[in-house]
């Protein structure tokens, strides 16, 4: 379990405040909120790229607040997937294993295993620029999951996909969760992503985490209102 307690991060005039957040094992937590409220800052703080001025981050009771990013086991998937352009898909996926000191055989076995699970065995020799958006996303997930992280941190991973591919990507992640059962925090401002994927939804405004809700509970909350109104307006227009 990952617990965030009384976390405060100051970046110039901006302050991020997370009074308390618990992410259970194998939970898929979606973080929602308007643009610019600090969702990405929150993910980068969890990943170890910003130092909090107060508060703690605990992983199964172990305080990792001051750990450097490479020692946390929190793997990041940014908006554009952050694939290493000079490496093949195989090398991209192998990177995390190699820097952790796995021997060549173990690296090969694990890369082949995750490539099998994510159905990307046929593209292992390709460079990222040769891949479609969907394939890039799968490679990013494979690279993040192959190291068996404590949690994966996804920062709006569907934002570059068109609506049809977006629906496919959601289904793919749901299937993957059934197969591998990983823990994740997924930042989005898309209500459909949140409702379809999230076990629970955390809501942020003005740099502060306002609460964590079950999906139905969130839909009934005033925070979901603007998103639902948008959907209603669309439905009304279609009628």
């Amino acid at each position, binding site marked *: 379990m990952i617990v965030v307690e009384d976390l405060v991060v100051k970046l110039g005039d901006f302050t991020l405040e997370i009074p308390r957040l618990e992410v259970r094992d194998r939970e898929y937590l979606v973080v929602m909120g308007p643009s610019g409220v600090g969702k990405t800052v929150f993910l*980068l703080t969890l*990943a*170890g*790229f910003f130092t909090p001025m107060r508060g703690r981050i605990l992983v199964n009771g172990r305080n990792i607040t001051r750990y*450097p*990013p*490479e020692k*946390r086991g*929190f*793997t*990041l*998937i*940014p*908006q*554009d997937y*952050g*694939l*290493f*352009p*000079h490496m093949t898909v195989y090398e991209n996926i192998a*990177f*995390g294993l190699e*820097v*952790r000191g796995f021997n060549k055989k173990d690296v090969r076995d694990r890369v082949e295993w995750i490539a099998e699970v994510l159905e990307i065995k046929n593209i292992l020799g390709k460079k990222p620029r040769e891949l479609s958006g969907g394939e890039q996303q799968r490679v990013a997930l494979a*690279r*993040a999951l192959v*190291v068996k992280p404590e949690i994966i*941190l996804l920062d709006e991973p569907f934002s570059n996909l068109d609506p049809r591919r977006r629906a496919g990507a959601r289904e793919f992640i749901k299937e993957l969760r059934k197969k591998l059962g990983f823990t994740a925090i997924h930042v989005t401002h898309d209500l459909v992503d949140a409702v379809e994927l999230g076990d629970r939804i955390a809501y942020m405004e003005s740099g502060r985490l306002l609460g964590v809700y079950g999906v139905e509970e969130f839909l009934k909350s005033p925070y979901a209102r603007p998103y639902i109104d948008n959907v209603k307006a669309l439905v009304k227009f279609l009628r």
Partner: protein
Amino acid sequence: MLARARGVESFLLTIAIASSIIVFFLLSPIIALFLMLDPRVFRESWFTDPVLSSEAWSALFLTIQASLLSTTVLCILSIPLAYLLARKSFLGKQVVEGLIDIPLMIPHAVAGIMVLVAYGRRGVLGWLTSSLGVAVDDSFWGIVAVMMFVSAPIMVDTLKLGFKSIDESIELVARSLGGSLWTVFRRITLPLSIPSILTGYILSWARAVSEVGAILIVAYYPKTINVLVIEWFNTYGLRYAVSLSIVLVLLSLIVFIATRMVFRK
């Protein structure tokens, strides 16, 4: 529709004429150099006259040696600085950036004076360069120091732009996957910077080879090819200076064309 097409045509024609003028302006001196070349003087300068050819070849080798050494040392030393300037904010960063660009703005002779008063035997740091055996007055090390000084802004600025062009999120991902700062620099940042390192190297090398004013002040001897061009021009006249200059032009053309071909691949 027709009027619009005519507008496009006249615009493109104007652009083409303006471009031709600048290309003609740059190409003319190169062509003129070849037209002015006297094959007999060229043979004499580079092959048949033992005194002249020995002087020419040693000046050419010295220039190549000093420029390669200065550019290599500068490249190695500039990578950490350029990375720092591209990735970090710190107090006085703008002052450091301004200092780096100083050699671009000052006259070449002044650059020579500055190097001399800093690293010459009687200079502020003369005790250090003398004790290390790299005193700059009339020495190979003087040529290397001047070449490094004048080409530093080109190297640092090119590398800095290269580091800046790498998406930082790639480095963040690599660290979250378990890579230390060193590992990420070695396996991600540096390989992705190779095109800008090569560009910086070639441009700085070209700047180093072309320097003459500052070298005349710091190290007239041993003579680089540029110093020799001036000396032969004053002593033997234009035809002899042309026979030396043409080799430098050919060398630069070969390096630049080869580099462009490599980049295209």
